[in-house]
């Protein structure tokens, strides 16, 4: 088996917007395309499915060109070995859950009774034996999601595509379904591409994350490396870190004309500095002693964040700080209030911006 079942470079021009995303997925691997709304994730997924033609680049699955504008290579959607779970599932409303799942096998030439047997088997695997005869509108959101998954997997696709598979679910169902989905994705022998804007879904379900912003890949890697070393504000926000880019010179990284952060790591050239909001301390007056980085900031916003209070601050750099409610009360944090911001060098993480 090749180490890259799916090899693609997805180039789609849509007016001023241009998507250009290289993508390689190994058998059994789950890759999440993660990005904000409008980043081009869904376009990428549609291009893989053949629902949107490429402008340039290629989609090669199992060494067969499904789409390659340069040579005119094109395999229509219905002849691609794919399975798609749509965001709102798109279960056929006039068919029972069983017939929805049996639809794919039937189209692949399986005789009716065998197709139903396959469908029954898949419904069993997603725990919906009892709901086989129900129409989609008689299913709960979580059940519909599982039927959609079973329908997509019932044709044993080489490439499984999932578009925001959990977005339509409420928080509680989401938790359960996410765990179950993870189990099925792990068991899937083919390649899986998952599109989501939810970092938790991506981290929980995917082996590898491809971060897409404005049609481009801005970062790529496994969960821990992406969360530890975000390279864009978007990723930093996703993983809940303060992130700055600047020029490093030994232990100092100049992140704004007025502010150079002292960091624990030693490096030179273009660099990122990241630290957690909980690592930020706030003081009514300029603190003396150990903290190496201090500056004056102005409170821009205050909101509850879990058990703590998250404070947004303006200043030479914008920064988020998590403080205890007691500290917040003591500091009388209201918008416009001036405070001193302190971050220990040992709490920061600096890494090169290139490579």
């Amino acid at each position, binding site marked *: 088996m090749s180490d890259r079942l799916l090899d693609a470079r997805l180039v789609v021009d849509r007016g001023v917007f241009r998507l250009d995303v290289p993508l390689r997925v190994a058998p059994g691997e789950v890759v999440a395309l993660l990005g904000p709304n409008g980043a081009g994730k869904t376009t990428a997924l549609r291009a893989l*499915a*053949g629902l949107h033609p490429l402008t340039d680049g290629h989609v090669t699955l199992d060494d067969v060109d499904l789409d390659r504008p340069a040579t005119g290579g094109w395999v229509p959607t*219905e002849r691609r070995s*794919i399975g798609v779970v749509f965001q709102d599932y*798109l279960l056929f409303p*006039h068919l029972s859950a069983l017939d929805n799942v049996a639809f794919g096998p039937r189209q692949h030439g399986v005789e009716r009774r065998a197709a139903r047997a396959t469908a029954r088997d898949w419904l069993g695997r997603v725990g919906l034996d009892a709901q086989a005869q129900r129409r989609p509108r008689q299913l709960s959101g979580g059940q519909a999601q599982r039927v959609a998954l079973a329908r*997509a997997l019932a*044709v044993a696709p080489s490439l499984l595509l999932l578009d925001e598979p959990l977005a339509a679910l409420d928080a509680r169902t989401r938790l359960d379904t996410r765990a179950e989905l993870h189990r099925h994705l792990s068991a899937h022998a083919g390649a899986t591409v998952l599109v989501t804007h939810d970092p938790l879904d991506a981290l929980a379900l995917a082996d590898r994350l491809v971060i897409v912003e404005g049609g481009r890949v801005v970062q790529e890697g496994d969960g821990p490396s992406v969360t530890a070393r975000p390279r864009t504000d978007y990723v930093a926000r996703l993983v809940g870190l303060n992130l700055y880019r600047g020029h490093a010179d030994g232990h100092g990284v100049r992140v704004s004309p007025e502010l150079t952060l002292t960091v624990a790591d030693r490096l030179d050239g273009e660099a990122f500095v990241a630290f957690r909001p909980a690592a930020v301390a706030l003081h009514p007056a300029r603190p003396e002693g150990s903290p190496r980085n201090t500056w004056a900031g102005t409170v821009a916003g205050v909101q509850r964040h879990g058990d703590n209070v998250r404070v947004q601050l303006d200043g030479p750099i914008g920064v988020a700080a998590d403080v205890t409610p007691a500290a917040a009360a003591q500091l009388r944090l209201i918008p416009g209030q001036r405070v001193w911001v302190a971050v220990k060098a040992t709490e920061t993480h600096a890494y090169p911006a290139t490579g």
Partner: protein
Amino acid sequence: MPAALLIPAGLGLLFIVLPLAGLLIRAPWTTLPQRLTEPGALTALRLSVQTATLATALCLLLGVPLAWVLARVEFPGRRLVRALVTVPLVLPPVVGGVALLLVFGRRGLLGGWLDSTFGVTLPFTTTGVVLAEAFVAMPFLVIAVEGALRAADHRFEEAAATLGASRWTTFTHVTLPLVAPGLAAGAVLCWARALGEFGATITFAGNYPGRTQTMPLAVYLALETDLESAIVLSLVLLVVSVGILVALRDRWMTTA
């Protein structure tokens, strides 16, 4: 509930129901059974129901694909085509009948060729009645189905494609079931319009009992000499059509 809506609604209903009541009141109830069993009336009724049904089938066969093209295919002049489809709605049916003669008549654009090649003549035949009715009724079907297709989520068709369904299978197994209620509504309208068709039929297919004399033609001619007879025939047409429409509607409502 606002009176501003209820009052005109009530008036609207009265406006439709009163003429109906007029027919019922003037009906010669004592001689009704005798008139009903007159062979001419039943012949015309049977012919009407048969031709309206065949015309509806023809409209489905041609109109559904046409509606699909209008709803799903982008092509230059689509608005013009859509406008053309509605022409039979605004054309006086008699003119429609003349237009059909100019095409399918003995000296028509296609009629002469049909006759010399296949020996098929359409005017003055039951087939001609079906054609005339279909011509007039087709817009009702096309408009209803096109609306349903536009309202239907075309991503279901994409979903079908990802499951390996060909375009045709997608159309028959996904698209058509999705628009079934609109299709049914269109077919009912189409059938009702075909059943009441008069002008195009008498112009294109003529009037001959048992062959081309449908109920509306029989009513019209009865009106020339015998008002009561015309009322009886109208009542029969009314009862049969309302009966069928209600029956079908109930079935569709329960399965939809």
